[in-house]
């Protein structure tokens, strides 16, 4: 039996990859677009997603996946894709044998590991939504990165009769 969190994390990893692959196909100018009320430009928001996920994985597993992404230093989309593929996979591996109640120290506070896994999923969802808002506000149809999209992409949902 697959743990349900495993698939939530698989969706998170898939959605990050799918969105970065989509944005990698945009022209460079589009990556500098933004809209009021969001985090920043498309490029900055994607870097923030990857940088934060590196931090969460380091907190949970003690290792940095890829060279640290500094949000003020632009990184090519293909590099972000490689890193976020690694962090996504590592999150799934760590969660499969982790204890939700395990105590860890982060930012000078004690947290349970479960809180950090929840934050991984929340943070990715929140900033992907902002990326989609920026795309939509700039006349670019955003890709579907919901769990429905993942399930259909993986052939895991179908119409019945």
């Amino acid at each position: 039996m697959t743990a349900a969190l495993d698939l939530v994390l698989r969706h998170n990893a898939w959605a990050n990859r799918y969105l970065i692959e989509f944005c990698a196909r945009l022209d460079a100018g589009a990556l500098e677009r933004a809209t009021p009320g969001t985090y920043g430009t498309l490029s900055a928001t994607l870097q923030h997603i990857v940088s934060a996920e590196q931090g969460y994985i380091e907190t949970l597993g003690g290792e940095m996946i890829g060279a640290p992404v500094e949000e003020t230093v632009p990184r090519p989309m293909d590099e972000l894709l490689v890193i976020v593929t690694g962090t996504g996979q590592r999150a799934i591996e760590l969660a499969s044998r982790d204890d939700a109640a395990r105590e860890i120290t982060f930012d000078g506070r004690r947290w349970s590991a479960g809180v950090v896994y929840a934050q991984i999923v929340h943070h990715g969802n929140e900033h992907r939504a902002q990326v989609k808002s920026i795309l939509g506000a700039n006349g670019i149809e955003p890709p579907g990165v919901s769990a429905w999209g993942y399930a259909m992409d993986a052939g895991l949902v179908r119409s019945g009769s």
Partner: protein
Amino acid sequence: MPNPFLKRQMEHDVWATEQMLARCRKLSPEQLDLTTVGTFGTIRRTLGHIVAADERYLARLLGAWDEAPLRETPDLMLDEIAVHLAHVREGIERLFSGSTLDADRLIPDTPLRRYAPNSPRIEMYVWVPAAQLINHGVDHRSHINTILATHGLETVDLQVWPYAMELGASREAKDK
């Protein structure tokens, strides 16, 4: 406890929608009808959509839903949304009150198709609406924060960090 991670994740989702609802109660009717490009619609409509969708996901996961689901109309009142959000919280409790949730079990249909009998029957595995419930809420609450910020209104921090601190699940570390 079965599926402790997922249960906590869903509880955070309800907490975050409750926080957003509380923020929306401080807005005027005109402010509730604000929107911005690139988002789902007005604040009011988006909040109702979050809760109505949560009910649909839980009905599918539970295989039963006794209450009439929230109808997504443009003039929804916040009190009505709050009543249905309470149903969502209760539904999550029921979902995790029994045996471990089997993510790989196939759900053949939704009990809410009785309200739309001409809609197609969609089969899906348990993990799909479970993951979607979490994704969907964050996605649309982010839209509301975007609308608030666009119009110069105060946004709400709905991350897991403040939720954990509110529950006492995070505290200052005394050692290094």
